[in-house]
């Protein structure tokens, strides 16, 4: 990692406003302009220049401690980092290694594992993908069936993962596997690391409803990896994965998607000549108010993190609210577009005017990361304490 004027020893020593200014300057100077506000999730070959630029400045892993090459940001600084990246329209890189796997390895991995894997994430040598979901365990992760059986010094893995983001781009997969078939529910699940080039691993892209292919299915057919690729304690994978979800859960409820869509509403209504229609304006105001209230709600949860406390089960309400608001906005966009709501491609190639694209993309928001139905079950039981 080569230093730059953006590489500091202690980012947390800056005031919030100074740090925010630093992030803004960094993005302005270093973010590849052509990758700003991408209409789809970038593949590794597209995102690589930006990934390597982040790496060069030591800005890849805001959430990792300094000692492992991260930025070591406090919770409140992490939120600023994310906010500014979102506001700027920064492209997401294949970031599962930084966001999910890194923190897990730092907390549960052996010293050897940390020393081996973490630097390779930061250098761009290893791109990671995540293997949690399975075809029949969408919102019901506990019922996963991909098995790993110990055979001598090796785990033998058979099964299938799905909804793996950018699976085809990854060098490694961190995955949950069933290691004790007799155990029930969340017990008997372990955390394994598998090279994607292993014999018996195959990847099949999933074409989404919005005709993008960021997800894939990953198949495991007698895939063998060394026993040492287990992370943490045997059969405790589920609790480990869950413990790490804490910080991630607020991001699922970030106003980003809704704000992004909302910001396009006025221009869309103007393009279609309905901005002065009072009925359109009233609906616009309703959604505006919903968005501002959602931001206020988000700040309440962010405050909890800023105070160094743990998020409760009610953070599910945040994700629920954001995903449904995002959809309402996208449905209004479709309505504004009139006949163009049926277009396959953007008007004049302008993604900001592509209501049907945003509408279709938004369909996923209430399904992934725990479907709305499951979120409501969780809230009913764990927040409202209903029987």
């Amino acid at each position, binding site marked *: 990692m080569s230093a730059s004027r953006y590489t500091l020893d202690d980012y947390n020593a800056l005031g919030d406003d100074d740090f925010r200014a630093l992030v803004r300057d960094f993005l302005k100077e270093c973010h590849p302009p052509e990758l700003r506000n991408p209409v789809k999730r970038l593949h590794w070959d597209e995102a690589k220049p930006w990934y390597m630029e982040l790496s060069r400045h030591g800005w890849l892993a805001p959430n990792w401690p300094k000692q492992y090459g991260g930025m070591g940001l406090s919770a409140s600084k992490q939120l600023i980092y994310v906010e500014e990246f979102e506001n700027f329209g920064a492209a997401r890189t294949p970031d599962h290694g930084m966001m999910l796997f890194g923190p897990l390895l730092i907390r549960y991995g052996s010293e050897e594992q940390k020393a081996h894997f973490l630097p390779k994430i930061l250098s761009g040598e290893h791109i990671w993908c995540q293997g949690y979901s399975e075809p029949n365990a969408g919102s019901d992760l506990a019922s996963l069936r991909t098995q790993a059986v110990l055979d001598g010094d090796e785990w033998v893995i058979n099964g299938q993962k799905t909804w793996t983001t950018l699976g085809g781009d990854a060098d490694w997969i961190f995955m949950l596997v069933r290691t004790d078939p007799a155990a029930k529910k969340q017990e008997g699940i372990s955390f394994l690391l598998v090279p994607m080039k292993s014999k018996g691993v195959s990847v099949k892209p999933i*074409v989404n409803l919005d005709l993008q292919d960021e997800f894939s299915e990953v198949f495991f057919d007698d895939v063998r990896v060394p026993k040492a690729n287990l992370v943490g304690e045997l059969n405790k994978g589920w609790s480990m994965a869950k413990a790490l979800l804490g910080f991630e859960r607020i991001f699922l409820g970030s106003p980003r998607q809704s704000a992004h869509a909302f910001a396009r509403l006025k221009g869309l209504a103007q393009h279609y000549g309905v901005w002065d229609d009072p009925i359109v304006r009233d609906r616009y105001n309703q959604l505006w108010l919903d968005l501002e209230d959602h931001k206020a709600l988000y700040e309440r949860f962010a405050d909890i993190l800023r105070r160094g406390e743990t998020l409760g089960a009610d953070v599910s309400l945040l994700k629920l609210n954001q995903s449904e608001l995002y959809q309402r906005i996208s449905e209004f966009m479709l309505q504004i577009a009139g006949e163009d709501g049926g277009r396959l*491609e953007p008007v004049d190639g302008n993604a900001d005017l592509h209501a049907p694209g945003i509408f279709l993309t938004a369909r996923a928001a209430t399904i992934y990361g725990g479907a709305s139905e499951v979120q409501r079950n969780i809230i009913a039981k764990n927040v409202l304490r209903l029987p």
Partner: protein
Amino acid sequence: MALDEERLENVRMLRESAAAVADRSDLSRVRAQRFRQPGFDRAVWRQMGELGWLGLRLPEERGGAGLGMAELIALTEELGAALAPEPFISALMATDMLDGARLEAALTGEAVILAAWQEKPRQLDGEVETSFVDGRVSGRKLQVPMALGADAFAVTTPQGVAIVDAGDPGLSIEITPAQDGGHWGTLTFNGARGEPGRAPRESWLDEAVLATAATLLGIIDATLERTVDYLNVRQQFGVKIGTFQALQHRAVDLKQQALLTRASIEDAAAIMDEGQGPAAKAASSRAKARASDAALIVTRQAIQLHGGIGYTDEHDIGLFLRKAMVLAPSLGDSALHRRRFAQFQTQADAKEGLPA
């Protein structure tokens, strides 16, 4: 209001033959046609001609079947349920404007002749500006479905209908691919050679509106059938997800929309079969407003109820959503038709002496 025996039999037969032409349980033909040009099947088109569908509303003396709106909506409902890609309604609109050999070719399915009437987005009633002077057509027409597959167009102008061949050097066609795998054409006429056609019947546009609403009804019902089937099969947390009360109640709300849409459409068909006037216009707009909204509600919720698999292009349920995205705003979206309903219903009530 209820249909007599003979018409019930017409409806039954039309539904049966529709099922044979366009199978609602097998969408492989639909998948094979999508995102290709022209995006529909000439063989199926000729079959439609043989079955007399292309002249379904045309009086018998003009070579049509002379059937009513109740029959037409039954047919388009079935075509909707099977997501048939053929531009059937646009062709029906065109047939109304044809005569002689053109008419015959259109009725047999030999030729595909489509209506080119719309000049602005969100237009339904109102003036058109395309000119037809000295046998030459100049102007611009929008939203012609599957325009690439047409042999000719029936073009509305203030000077009367002009029939223009698709290959005319004075006509250029710009294609916009659509979410349902089809496309629509923007036709620019620059002194294209036109033959005179005939003025369509007064009810022409409202019939197309209602037929489109019925297509959406077919989409709604087929989507709901497939979704209920899925709820009866898919397991989660060890039980069928159809046992979850929250999903049951949501399915009921969708059924409610389906039933209201059917009631609205069949009511409108009965009113239109009784005669023209503001009440008929109000009824067709009411039905289209309901169908457009209901179709988007039902197809959107169907994706949600299918969960992750519903978000893949591989699963057929998404095809219904895409079709609804194209047809819900087509021939007027729900906002347009709500206003139009209120306008004509107020006229109709005034005519009947009801308090406005």
